[in-house]
Every structure is written in structure tokens, then in C-alpha cells.
């Protein structure tokens, strides 16, 4: 597989195209383990794609690969943006090219990842200051606009340490949108938030994606949130894409009784979406290991 040229189909209009991606990590004995294997999917302009799966399914690794933080061993990740109409594979891009792609996307990190030594306003101004020659007075106005969008204007001059978890995320979202990105990545946007704050963040995500026609990729395992914001969904399981499809398809699987589902995959997804403790997901997990341990010691 490695060395083979993987190129997305010509005609399709995508924003991100992931082709046969594989990421290997070394385990304790130094043997390679495929954390991601043969991941292929596209993200289309303006849509919100939710990536879900249990802990350890590889969704964080996938996100880290998408944002150029990790380097996959095989496959390709292509970006196509307004300023770069020609698809760029970030895996063979130079650092400068990768940075040009990075300027076109924004990321909301799990904890907001605000720069703790700067005020909220300075955090949002930083990308603008560093990447443009826009007048400081205008940067100041842009910061205000961004803060208004996430309802954080009253907290403009606070330090991150003075903010609550939800406020940090909102400020992080304001910073992620500072350069008017075409793509927004969300890493567990509702993790660690109370239901009301979490719903408010979801609303912001929907708002931004609809009004700014931003393409969004959301990594989450909160099902309520996922079904609220998704246009399409991807389910990962043990480093592979189990199913990708429109939200309706997943809603159908969620609401159908397991015995009437087509195959094992669907029953697994059903179990996951409903948060049940019994099903193929938990049956498979560790059972063979356990058996081996009992029998052979």
C-alpha cells in the first residue's frame, strides 16, 4: 500500500479528502500497531461531519492527523480551499504549505487551549497580528466582532484562569474563527460541560456552520450533541471506518430493535448509539484475551 499514489477522484468537490489513511504506533514491545487502518472518506463544503466511536477507537488520532499534528504512515489527506483551489496533500506538503492550509482551518480544543499568559482579547488578536498587516485598530474591532458572536464580550479583558470551562471553550471558538476559517475542527466540544452549556455550544456550532457556511468536523462521543449538529456521521471502531452516512441512517439504526438490524456492524452501532452495556461491542472486548488467560494462564 505504501508508495502507491492515492489521489481523490477528480470531479468531486470536497474540502477534505482522506484516502486510505493508516497510522502506526509502537506498542510496549516496540511492535507496530495499526491505530488507524484504511480510513477513507470525504468532507464536503458546508457540511457538519461528526466523527464518533468509543475510547481508543482512533478518533483523536484521526483528528491529530487531519490537523497536521501527527504524520500517518500511509495514505493521503487532501485539502481544497478558497485560496487553494488545487488539492494539497498535507502529507507531502512542505512546512510553509502546511501552514497555509492551517491558516484556513480553526480548531476548538477540548479545554479551549487558550494562551494562559494573554487576555481573552489578546488570544483572539494573536493569529491576526501574526498573519497579517492589518491595522491594530481594525484588529481590535475584529476581536470585538468575534467575541460578540460567542457572547463573550463582557469577558474581553479577563485572563483565561478567570474563566469557567464553558467560557474558555467559547473564547477558544472565537480564536478558532479569528482568521475566518473555511474549516472548523471540534475536539469533544461538549466534554466536561453541563447539559445547558453543552447545548449552547452546539447551537453556536450550528450557527457558525449555517451562517458562515463553514465546513465542520466534530469529534465526539456525546450522542445527544452528535445528533443535534450532524449532517453526516462516521462511526470508527478499532481504527477502521465502520459506517459513514447521513444522520438519518444513524437515527434509523439507533431506533431499530437490534434483532431487526441487518448485520453485526449495525448492531454494534446500535449498541453504541444507545449506550447499552450488552451487545457486540462489549462481547468482543477482551473476551478472547480473557479466555486465553483462563485456559493457558
Amino acid at each position: 500500500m505504501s508508495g502507491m499514489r492515492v489521489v481523490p477522484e477528480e470531479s468531486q468537490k470536497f474540502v477534505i479528502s482522506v484516502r486510505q489513511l493508516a497510522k502506526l504506533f509502537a506498542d510496549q514491545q516496540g511492535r507496530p500497531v495499526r491505530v488507524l487502518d484504511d480510513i477513507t472518506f470525504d468532507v464536503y463544503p458546508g457540511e457538519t461531519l461528526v466523527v464518533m466511536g468509543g475510547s481508543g477507537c482512533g478518533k483523536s488520532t484521526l483528528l491529530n492527523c487531519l490537523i497536521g499534528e501527527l504524520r500517518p504512515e500511509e495514505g493521503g489527506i487532501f485539502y481544497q480551499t478558497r485560496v487553494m483551489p488545487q488539492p494539497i496533500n498535507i502529507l507531502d506538503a512542505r512546512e510553509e504549505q502546511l501552514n497555509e492550509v492551517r491558516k484556513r482551518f480553526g480548531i476548538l480544543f477540548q479545554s479551549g487551549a487558550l494562551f494562559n499568559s494573554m487576555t481573552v482579547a489578546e488570544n483572539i488578536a494573536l493569529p491576526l497580528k501574526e498573519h497579517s498587516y492589518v491595522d491594530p485598530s481594525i484588529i481590535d474591532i475584529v476581536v470585538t466582532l468575534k467575541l460578540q458572536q460567542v457572547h463573550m464580550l463582557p469577558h474581553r479583558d479577563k485572563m483565561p484562569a478567570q474563566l469557567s470551562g464553558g467560557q474558555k471553550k467559547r473564547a477558544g471558538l472565537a480564536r478558532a474563527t479569528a482568521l475566518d476559517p473555511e474549516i472548523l475542527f471540534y475536539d469533544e466540544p461538549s466534554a466536561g460541560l453541563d447539559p445547558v452549556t453543552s447545548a449552547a455550544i452546539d447551537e453556536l456550532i450550528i450557527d457558525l456552520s449555517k451562517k458562515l457556511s463553514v465546513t465542520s468536523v466534530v469529534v465526539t462521543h456525546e450522542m445527544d450533541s452528535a445528533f443535534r449538529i450532524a449532517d453526516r456521521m462516521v462511526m470508527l471502531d478499532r481504527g477502521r471506518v465502520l459506517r459513514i452516512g447521513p444522520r438519518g441512517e444513524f437515527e434509523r439504526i439507533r431506533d431499530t430493535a437490534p434483532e431487526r438490524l441487518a448485520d453485526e456492524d449495525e448492531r454494534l452501532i446500535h449498541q453504541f448509539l444507545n449506550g447499552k452495556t450488552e451487545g457486540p461491542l462489549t462481547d468482543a472486548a477482551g473476551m478472547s484475551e480473557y479466555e486465553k488467560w483462563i485456559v493457558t494462564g
Partner: protein
Amino acid sequence: MSDAAPPSRTGRLTAAVTAFGQMGYNARHRFVRDVRYLGGVGYLVGDTLAWVVRALVFRRVKLGASALASQMVRVGVRSIPIVVLIQVFIGIILALQLAPTLEDYGSLEKVADIIGLAMFRELGPLLSAVVLSGFAGASIAAEIGAMVESEEIKALRAHALNPIRFLVVPRLLATVIMMVGLTVVADVVGVLGGLLTSWLVLDIHPWSYLDNTQVALFYRDFFTGLVKGGVFGVLIAAIACYEGLNVTGGAEGVGRATTSTVVKSIVALIATDCVFTAVFFIFKL
């Protein structure tokens, strides 16, 4: 282990060979790890210098004078009182330690020469660097380590901001500049400590002490000290930043990085000082 039957002769031999082999294996392992560490720090320094060159020579990137200024204040200014205090003490100690021996040889006034040389060539830069590694090195490592833990470094990269350029360059430059500055302060203060002791205790007149110092010292003594100081600054900042950037494992990891920064800095400082001194000795500098 103690409950087991006493090992046979051959068993003991095998155990010894195994232990020896294990030792060899461990040593190799450790050697590889150390070489990797040195390589990592070296790479960091190279990368940082490349950014400095790009900013100063080609003027293609913004370097941020305000970041540099705030780092200089944070790195250096707070350590000035400690350095002053320590170097005065060292001046006093040296004067008192040297006096009896020199008096035996009837050349008490040589105390000024020795203190001057020791301060300018050796103790001024070295002790300032040790203080700075405890002060600035530890705090830089802790700060950057905390930034790694809170995903700030990841966020920087995601915003197309290079962490080396953004965090390491100002810290390294600030440490080098402050280290050179502290060396000058240390030199002066150390000599002053020696002078005061000689005056009050050994009854050497300040003017003759200064005169002796002036005669004994050459410019090269001063400049080799400054060069040492600058290089020490690079070492402290590079080790601190490297440790900080490679933090793993939460708050505990940050703590470990801080301790390890101070320990490794001090070892690196003294080892480098040794190399410097040898080189200066060979080339008669």
C-alpha cells in the same frame, strides 16, 4: 530471593555473566538515550539560531521585540539580587581562604590578582549561570511544560505559529543577553567583595587592591568570561525549553521536567566550562 536454595557454582556464574551483560545492555541503552538527548537539544539550538538569522538577516519573519523585553525582565532582572549576594560572598570567601597561604609566601597583595582572575575567567560566569538555571531555567521548563499539557503548543502550531520561533527564540535570546549582563555584574561585585574583605580584614588599601587587579587582568580575561557566559545562556535556555517541550504525564511530568532541567543544566554547565577552560589553556587565551 532469600528463600530460594543456595545457587550452584555454575548458576552463580551464569547469574554473574547475565548481570554483566545486562549492565552492558543498560549502558548501551543509556548511551543511546543520552546521545538522542544531546541531539535533540542541539537540533533545538540550531533551529532557534536559524529563526534568529531569518529574522535579523533576511527580515522575513516578525520576531517580537516586546516578547524579548518581557522575557529579559522575567529571566534576568529577578536573579540580579541573588547573583550579587552570592558573588559578594564568594569574593569574601576567596579573600579569607587565600590570605593565610599567600601571607606565608609574603605576597598577601596577590590576593587581588587571584580573585580578579578567578572571578572574571571562572566564577563570574559559572556561578551566575548556576543561579540562572535555578531561577530562569526551572521557570521556563515549568511554563513551557504547562503549555504542552494545556494543549497551548498544539494550538500554536494549529494557528500556523511555530513554537520554536514563538516561544524558544525570545527565551533563548533573553537568557543569553541576561547571562552576559549578569556575568559583568558578577565580575564587578565579586571583586568588590574581595576588595572590602581585603580592606577591612587584611588591611590592604582599596586603591592598591584595584591597582593590583588592573595589572593582573587583561582584556582577554574579561572577554573569555563573557563568551562563557553567553554560551552558558544558550545551554540553560535550550535545556529548559527542550525539557519543557517534551513534557508528558500531567502535573507530575512538569515537576519532573523542572527538576531535570536544573540537574542537567548544572552538569552541562560545568562540563562545558571544563571544555572551554581546556581550549583556552591550549590556545593560551
